[in-house]
């Protein structure tokens, strides 16, 4: 997993509520597309017109937001399907951080598993950053200090912060806990034998 420490990049405003993971990546792209190629299909329905040409009105196609690595989003970004390909598509497109008032819960967890930082701020703070993003200027995110542009602080769980800073996912940590898992299972089997007779 790619580490996340600091990021200086253009932030694109996406002032839509309830952007769902079907909208971020279409189901057809979740079936056979290799993970390394999925980024080109991020926001496919919005970035391209039905004929296949680029939609010049979509924010990521506007010249000043090309190369954006941060998205400032409306409420409940990433709602809907659990498809982790939505995060893979954003990461593949080049997005490393998100700023929104709230996220779809499964999507939120999936971000941390893939080196993408989803920042939660109040609606008024997000609105303010949305206005700043409109100017096309660079944003600076410092995960170690937990700040945006040096002034806006944000919260992140220490465990998840450590995972991002070090570029590790959960699995390695849990595999080392096997004795505890085995002990739990033995005790549970004694307490609830029917669970293990499936």
């Amino acid at each position, binding site marked *: 997993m790619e580490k996340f420490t600091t990021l200086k990049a253009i932030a694109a405003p996406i002032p839509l509520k309830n952007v769902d993971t*079907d909208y971020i990546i279409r189901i057809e792209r979740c*079936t056979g597309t290799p993970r390394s190629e999925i980024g080109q299909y991020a926001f496919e329905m919005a970035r391209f017109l039905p004929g296949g040409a680029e939609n010049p009105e979509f924010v990521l196609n506007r010249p000043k937001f090309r190369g954006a690595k941060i998205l400032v989003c409306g409420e*409940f970004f990433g709602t809907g399907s*659990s*498809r982790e390909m939505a995060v893979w598509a954003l990461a593949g497109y080049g997005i490393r951080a998100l700023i929104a008032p709230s996220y779809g819960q499964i999507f939120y*967890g999936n971000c941390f598993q893939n080196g993408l930082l989803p920042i939660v701020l109040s609606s008024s703070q997000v609105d303010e950053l949305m206005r700043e993003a409109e100017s096309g200027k660079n944003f600076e995110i410092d995960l170690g200090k937990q700040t945006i542009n040096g002034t806006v602080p944000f919260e992140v769980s220490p465990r998840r912060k450590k995972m991002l800073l070090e570029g590790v996912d959960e*699995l390695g940590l849990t595999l080392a806990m096997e004795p505890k*898992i085995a002990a*739990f299972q033995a005790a*549970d089997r004694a307490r609830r034998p029917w669970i293990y007779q499936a």
Partner: protein
Amino acid sequence: MKTMFDKIWDMHVVDDVGDGMQLMFVSRHVMHELSGQRGQMEMAKRGLKMRNPELTVGSFDHVVSTVPGSKGRGVAWADKMIDYFRDESKKAGIHLYDIGQDGQGIVHVVGPELGFTLPGTLLVCGDSHTCTHGALGALAWGIGTTELVHVLATQTVVQQRPKTMRVDFRGTPPKGVSGKDLILALIGKLGTAGGVGYAVEYAGEAIRGLDMEGRMTVCNLSIELGAKVGMVAPDGKTYAFLKGRRHAPKDALWDQALAHWKTLPSDAGAEFDAEHALDCGSLAPQITWGTSPEDVVGVDGTIPDNKPAALEYMGLTAGKPIAGTKVDRVFIGSCTNSRLPDLRAAAAIVKGRKVAKHVKAWAVPGSWRIKQDAEKEGLHQVFLDAGFEWREAGCSMCVAANGDYVEPKARCVSTSNRNFVGRQGPQARTHLASPAMAAAAAIAGEIADVREF
């Protein structure tokens, strides 16, 4: 004084990993060929072995063809995915229910149908509608691919403990109002972010009055309420539903399990972080008009004007009645509404009538078993006589990953769970409703009030 959620959660904590996160033991795992195959590929890449295949059930639903007589096979990429999932699942030794076999179907239908989903278990699956299993008093939620690999390798998942919410569904729903209408009305009231961060317990007279399948429909749409977890306390209906099913405990183990299950419901006086109520006594059948499940009105209501972009996408005019809107497609199926009572409710409306000439209508049973049982009752003949297509079991036009989709700008009344932009196909226009409402729309050729049938 504990809530049901707290009891089941606490029973599955392996360890506190700090920072409000806990390592949770997964006592039931369900897999399907779409997310499951991705997980298996990652496992192979990392050289990992599955830890507890005996606690996993797998089946085929997302990409299988539901074309009548297709045996699940359709396009080449889907067949490849199906074959990979089958081979890896057999190698790993999970309980696999193959296409054309009793036990195959939509994983959130067959988990309960097989008696694999049990009260008091912690169940996960690489699919957001895993919350459906909460209807049996299980703690169940959907996970992503990386978490799925974590489950395959360690039989655990790391999770932040959610807050608790209880919703009291008051009164007795009138005729024509089903579990689907109850949950759509709740989402309309609280919004799609209303449940974010919560495990929701559905309680009250109206929930107790639902059959198990109706409770599954309610729990299914928890994720559309923003909650990963939705649950209903087990009761006599739950135990009667489970008894004798293939994976359910037998004999002495059944008695032992039953005694335990009876301790699961929330204690009287247990405190929830949030409480809501919904009066069901005068509810109308519900139907969505926009591109989010919260965009919902009673079928006797008018189209609101607060979301112009959604109305433009849907091709609707604010201020007009929703009833009378002409439809092109009707889809009865999905993990929300493809079970036997759903098909019966739809067939009761369809019986002796004909699908409107301009409408293409499908009934897609949720599992191989449901299809057989429905045919034994003659339901398939009711649908076929009316002009419906009667298809093979699978996710079909809910996920549109299998060749089943709605044409651009065509309007579909669907019993599924998502009316998102492009969900049922590029530019498709989806109206979510109950099976009876969908059947009424098929006959009338327009959105219609099922109470008038």
